[in-house]
């Protein structure tokens, strides 16, 4: 097994230009994010955030579908976007595979679904000829609970969303990747069928030794399935740590707000005044982006960018509160990593 980190993001930044050429502004969809998925045991890391948090942009950068504006991305210790030692696309695709949000969009409606399975098997070195490929495909489909006989020759519209998503997962498994990046894989699937897919991730992590990066806005499934959770807010990584720790003892005020707002079963909301959503542009600011809504805000939060603080073993938060609101210069930034 490789001793290299499965994935590492260093100071990742991605800017978009919105509005016109002259009057437009620069939107930082991903703002200086550093994150590591260490070598060793496979893990499931959830990236949780609401719309506009940057989680989808990050997923697309990790999948090489989008280029970063700044910072570095490493997969298996190798540079993805630049540098002489850069990973070539063939190697990349054998290491990283995607699962997309909409299973019906993930396949062309004009081709039978198994054509993608065969392509993957033959192109990415999992089989030498069509006969072998069929065996590999049958095996992959089995691990997601499907029989190849029921999949062969059929078109996407002949399957349900849940089945198609499983086929997506099977396809992603064929080259034996070490990392699967799943972008909201169950948000378009009915509640009663979601757990079937989510449980699959847990099962595959164990059986196939593959790590998952699970992008979602749903805190409940994130808690259920992940080892680690990263919370994103307006492009910043505001909290990172083991899922249990984060959700039982959140260190960032936004995490608290998220936890509070999720309509949980078993725990009723109390009718305390709820902060209204603020309409301001919180993207391109040089201080804490959450300051306008934060119940613990102090002056310094509105003046400087908050530091990345180590708040526990394998835990960090982007906030002034854990360091008693001391200004930036007075402490060392935590080394990002889990």
């Amino acid at each position: 097994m490789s001793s290299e980190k499965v994935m590492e993001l260093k100071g990742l930044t991605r800017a978009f230009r919105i509005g016109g050429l002259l009057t437009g502004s620069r939107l930082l969809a991903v703002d200086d994010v550093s994150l590591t998925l260490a070598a060793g045991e496979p893990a499931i890391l959830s990236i949780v955030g609401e719309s506009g948090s940057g989680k989808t942009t990050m997923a697309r950068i990790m999948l090489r579908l989008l280029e970063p504006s700044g910072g570095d991305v490493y997969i298996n210790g190798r540079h993805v976007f630049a540098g002489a030692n850069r990973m070539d696309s063939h190697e990349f695709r054998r290491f990283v595979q995607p699962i997309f949000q909409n299973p019906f969009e993930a396949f062309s409606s004009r081709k039978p679904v198994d054509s993608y399975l065969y392509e993957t098997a033959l192109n990415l070195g999992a089989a030498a000829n069509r006969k072998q490929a069929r065996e590999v495909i049958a095996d992959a489909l089995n691990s997601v609970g499907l029989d190849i006989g029921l999949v062969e020759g059929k078109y996407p519209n002949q399957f349900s969303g849940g089945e198609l998503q499983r086929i997506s997962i099977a396809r992603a498994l064929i080259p034996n990747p070490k990392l699967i990046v799943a972008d909201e894989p169950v948000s378009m699937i009915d509640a009663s069928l979601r757990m079937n897919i989510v449980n699959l991730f847990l099962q595959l992590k164990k059986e196939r030794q593959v790590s998952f990066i699970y992008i979602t806005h749903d805190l409940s499934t994130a808690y259920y399935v992940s080892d680690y959770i990263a919370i994103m807010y307006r492009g910043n990584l505001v909290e990172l740590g083991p899922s249990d720790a984060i959700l039982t003892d959140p260190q960032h005020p936004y995490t608290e707000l998220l936890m509070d707002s999720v309509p949980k079963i078993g725990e009723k909301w109390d009718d305390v005044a709820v902060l209204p959503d603020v309409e301001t542009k919180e993207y391109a600011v040089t201080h804490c982006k959450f300051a306008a809504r934060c119940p613990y805000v102090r002056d310094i939060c509105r003046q400087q960018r908050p530091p990345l603080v180590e708040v526990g073993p394998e835990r960090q938060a982007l906030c002034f509160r854990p360091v008693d609101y001391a200004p930036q210069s007075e402490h060392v930034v935590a080394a990002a990593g889990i």
Partner: protein
Amino acid sequence: MYTLSNVKAYYDSPRGPVKAVDDVTLEILPNEILGIAGESGCGKSTLIKVIYGHIKPPLRLVSGEIRAEMKDNGQITILSAKDLPKVWWEFISYVPQASMSVLNPVMRIENQFFDAVSRFHRAGSREEIRQQVADYLKELDLPVEVLKAYPHQLSGGMRQRVLVALATFLHPQIILADEPTTALDVVVQRGILRMLTRVQQAMGNTLIIVSHDMGVHYQITRRMAIMYAGQLVEVGPTERIFSAPQHPYTEMLIKSLPRIGDHSAREGISGRPPSLLDPPPGCPFAPRCPAAMDICTQVRPPLVQTEDDHLAACFLHEEALAAAHAQKEGAQS
């Protein structure tokens, strides 16, 4: 206050009728928050349309009776399905899904209020109405500046709030909210749900919320109706539905939902819901039900009372078996 009796509403399609609402009997009470729960394709959106009286081709009211009692200055008027469109906004209002753009994009918000209100408002000049609207918005914690804005200048959450204000301005007796927060973030969602419940509390009317999110139902509804394949499978107080569900589908659905703080294994339901074009005979959930018996695939279980205020359509309850036998005997004699 509003009763649906054996209502069947189908969509006419080239492949045959889509039985979106298939023999539904439901009583809607005054001063309550009722949740209609179910997954995609169960017919809940169609049920809301029927309750609202928005029945246009290809949707067709096939059979059944709809009876609404409208109270107006001490007078009670009985309305049927076709009377309902005449009292939209005034008696019954509809808040659509957050992702749909129902506001006119080239009209300022205040003009949309005037538009909606002008038909019904008994007296008052534009200025008076504007003041009343402004006052109402203040009550709802909405910034008055919103009136001068165009829809695209507002965020999704704010637009949805405006829609709620618009729908409730004339104090309707029934507010229908069809997945009002589905495309919105959790934080925004909480704000809007809170707004809806406050409005209901202040006006003492009935709020009906359609949502596939069981958590939303748990938090704000007091009574729930669970739909599956166009049929009502369970109706009862929200607390009891979650603590002691009376139908296997409800039970399995609730058991499958992950809860924060609880790492116990969860399982989804196997198989998938039946097509509304060609539902199986008997109980629609039978093919996926671990407790299915022979009778379940032959006879459709009637919705019977299993406990106080609690109804379920399942042959696991003796009451249902008894009712089915009585029906059969009644038909035979």
